[in-house]
């Protein structure tokens, strides 16, 4: 079920990317898309009734059901890359504003 929610978030992000003409709103849409994707990745590792994949004094048997830890590690990397891209995107937004004095794509005569 959570995967449908993740895909819905991705679709909302994609819709935002296609319809918005403001560069800040485009960055927000991009982040919504990435958050949806990250939730999707996490959901891949979900196991019903599974516990955190950490061996403790009480949870010390390999017979216990653990959730898959790999997607959690992957999503960390994906989040870091997403933050880097967002920061870089915002730096370009600052450049756009400095050069053209607007954040609206339609008011920029470049492309």
């Amino acid at each position, binding site marked *: 079920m959570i995967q449908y929610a993740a895909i819905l978030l*991705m679709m909302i992000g*994609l819709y935002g*990317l296609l319809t918005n003409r403001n*560069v800040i709103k*485009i960055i927000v849409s*991009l982040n919504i*898309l*990435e958050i949806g*994707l990250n939730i*999707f*990745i996490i959901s*891949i590792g979900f196991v019903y009734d599974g516990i955190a994949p950490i061996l403790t004094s009480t949870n010390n048997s390999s017979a216990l059901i653990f959730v898959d830890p*790999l*997607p959690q590690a*992957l999503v960390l*990397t*994906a989040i870091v*890359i997403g933050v*880097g*891209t967002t920061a*870089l*995107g915002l730096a*370009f*937004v600052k*450049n*756009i504003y400095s*050069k*053209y004095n607007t954040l609206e*794509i339609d008011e*920029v005569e*470049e*492309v």
Partner: protein
Amino acid sequence: MMSAILLIAIPLLAAFLSILSKKVAPVLLLLVGAANIVLLMFIPSEIINIGGFALPFGINLFLDSYARIALYLVNGLFFIVTLLNVAEYKKLSSILLVALAALNGLLLTGDLFNLFVFLEIAGIAAYLITSTNRKPLSTFNYLVIGTVGSSLYLFGLMILYGMFGTLNLMDMIHEIQTAGVAYGALILPFFLMFIGLGIEAKLLPFNAWVKGILKHSNTLSGPMIASVYAAAISLMFGRLISNLFQFEGKLLTVVVVLLIAGVILGEAMAFASKKGREILLFSSISQACITVLLFVNGIIIWAVYLVIANALSKLVLYLVVNKAAKDLGSDDVDDLQGLFAKNILVGIAFTVAALSVLGLPLFVGFVVKLNYLTQLAVASQFVVIGLILVASIVEGIYFVKLLVKLWYPSEKTINVKFNLPYKAVFAVVTLLIVLFGTYSDPLDSLDNGIDTIQDQIGVIYNG
């Protein structure tokens, strides 16, 4: 013991060190660029399990003949482009070192998630390199489209992970071949990954970023994106198409139609254009689509040669046009009229490169074109051959028109000075294009067997 991991680790380490001293950074960039090429000669072909974790548990790097050819090409072109531009773009030294590490990683990695990471790092470096165009909105568009592309790739990959429980390329291929999953279930993840990588590889209709970036490119960003990045992405993409995707049925039809549309529309747009860089960028789109089309049809070796021939030709074409555009302040074909009147050597290099892309005899482009058309004929792809030939005629018309314009002087004399390093690069590339165009035996000595992933899978899983 030399290991392929050094090709990624050394540029990455140098990138960190280069931040400490701005004066040393450009020297470090050139040294590492040259060292990588030398190092490649001593690294044996092997699978490297990073951290000692055996396949499929750890990340592995895979160096075979295919990866070696790709690495020589990418590292060689990268060194040439940086050598010509390092004095002017000293500030970008650290970023260029990161780009080199990421491109080498793309070509070496045997892990599909690791490939996503390298794709993003290469992308971030590319956005920064293209920011030198001083067109921030175009760079912003590139960033947004590139990020969506890699997100789609990751989405497709995660669906595959959910199905097969592995991220390793060889293990994934083995699982797909043995698990007996219906091809229909693989269409969605494969198509998502294809679109994601197609965005980076400039395939129609996912290439909206290309025009904004290459139309305003300079002597660094133009050759770097159109030649170095294009070669690396095409060869990495080709590896996945030949081994992982193996398109069939309706998906094959959709992909072939998209690629053929890309070839035709790319040439038509180039024909309609009046600006030097626009003509080259649309031609690049068309050539990228032909390359992927060959990989889809399993013609690996001629696709690789096409990538090499195009990368060399595009290096010369973009360097000439970007240098002229920089000195004259315009890349309108009318403004460039008579460019070669006082630059005969440069004119010869440009003409040879353009005619090679076109596929005329005496140049390497002809040998490649003749062979891949023959292979397509063997595969009974006559419609594809016909459409490629039609596209070639259109290509011939606009390239000849461009050459005539650039060779014949107008009343207004234009003066563009190409310095010695530029002329040396042009001379070497021209010699290579003519040499392999007239003496093609070395090209015939290799075949599709350069890509050994399937053989390795056989050895690992079947003994």
